[in-house]
């Protein structure tokens, strides 16, 4: 594995290898030493959380970090091409982690430079480290990825995270409930793909009837700007708010996940229940990103 650009490039075997390494690094972070290795965080748009997670992952393995955050005041503003900018940064570092608003940017950069490239989000396209940390989180919470019942809740139309997660889990025999307002439902081409892969799923507009039946509830934010008129937004916004009361008869092993930041879609009274797992999910991102960085830097036998 030279780069991590898209979940489409990863076989089930490779995914399981990365999960196993993340688990091993969580138990014993001293087994690897990335000192004198430099990670360049090249962020064409702000994403504090993802960048800090990568930086922490690298630093906790002893590595160094350099960063470009936003394009203001950089050579990009002077009109430099993406190819030139990253070719120069590749001379300063051992691995590039790139976030870019345009789709396919990370793939293009990986073709331009000779060091490994990690896609930390390319517009609405891919965010494979998020998908992998979600898989790691699910496996850690449930002990397996196989045969789980999952509800994906919220904005399923524009949510890159849930699309990617649906595909990534498809090879592990899941049963999905896609819960969203009609206007934000899972795109038809994704449903078609899942049917072709033999994946079981049901589309729902209400959450309450399925809550007691699921192992994982993956919640995403419904953004007001997705709605053409304010009235429609007001109508649906409260239908997908997760409260401790909603979860009162949930299965013991249910875990609630959220890529964060949340606004009001999970109330804070859920935080102190055994179901809350979103902060663990954020922490898991560190171990997963360590596994990815170490693998691409050739530090794993």
């Amino acid at each position, binding site marked *: 594995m030279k780069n991590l650009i*898209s979940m*489409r490039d990863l076989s089930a075997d490779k995914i399981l290898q990365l999960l196993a390494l993340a688990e091993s690094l969580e138990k014993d972070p001293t087994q690897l030493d990335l000192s004198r290795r430099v990670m360049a965080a090249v962020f064409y748009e702000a994403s504090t959380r993802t960048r800090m997670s990568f930086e922490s992952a690298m630093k906790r393995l002893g590595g160094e970090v350099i960063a470009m955050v936003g394009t203001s005041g950089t050579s990009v503003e002077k009109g430099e*091409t*993406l*190819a030139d900018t990253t070719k120069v940064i590749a001379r300063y570092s051992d691995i590039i982690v790139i976030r*870019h*608003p*345009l*789709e*396919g*940017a990370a*793939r*293009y950069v990986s073709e331009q430079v000779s060091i490994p490239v990690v896609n930390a989000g*390319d*517009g*609405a*396209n*891919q965010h494979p480290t998020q998908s992998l940390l979600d898989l790691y989180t699910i496996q850690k919470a449930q002990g397996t990825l196989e045969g789980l019942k999952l509800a994906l809740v919220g904005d399923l139309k524009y949510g890159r995270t849930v699309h990617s997660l649906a595909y990534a889990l498809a090879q592990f025999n899941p049963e999905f409930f896609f819960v969203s307002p009609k206007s934000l439902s899972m795109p038809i*081409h994704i449903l078609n793909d899942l049917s072709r892969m033999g994946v079981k799923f049901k589309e729902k507009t209400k959450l309450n009837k399925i809550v007691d039946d699921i192992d994982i509830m993956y919640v995403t934010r419904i953004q007001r700007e997705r709605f053409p008129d304010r009235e429609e937004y007001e109508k649906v916004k409260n239908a997908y708010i997760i409260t401790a009361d909603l979860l009162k008869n949930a299965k013991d092993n249910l875990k609630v996940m959220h890529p964060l930041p949340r606004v009001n879609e999970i109330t804070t009274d859920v935080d102190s229940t055994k179901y809350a797992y979103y902060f663990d999910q954020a922490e898991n991102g560190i171990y997963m990103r360590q596994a990815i960085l170490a693998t691409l830097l050739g530090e794993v036998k």
Partner: protein
Amino acid sequence: MMKVMKVDAIRNGTVIDHIPAGRVQRVLAILKPRGTDVVMMGMNFSSKAMRKKDIIKIEGRELNQHEVNSIALIAPDAKVSIIRDFNVTQKFKVEVPEVIEGLVLCPNPKCITNAEPMLTRFALVEANGSKLSCQYCERVFSTDEMDHV
């Protein structure tokens, strides 16, 4: 009865037949004949298989399979004959290549290929070339909605 030729036969060169009617100019735009090439263009000829078809004859230039494949997306059933001294010496059909590089533009305005000085690259989704997937933004498009470079 003597057969009447609507277009002069060529001595040496290439004939591209069975182009869908109305697409001859787009085919020529892709093949980009040199300024001095003698080119004959026929439109709306009657055809048993296609009812109406377009045809191109290029005098003095032999196209190779690679050049011809570049028209496959808009003339998938085209047949190519290489002519030497008024005789057909070689015949082949166009084939849609597995990877289509630098030929069509990605319709996704947020695709990196529309922002950087770079070639586009698409893979076939349907074997006949009716659907292509962008190797950068990973979206799938039907060929009808795509513009040529």
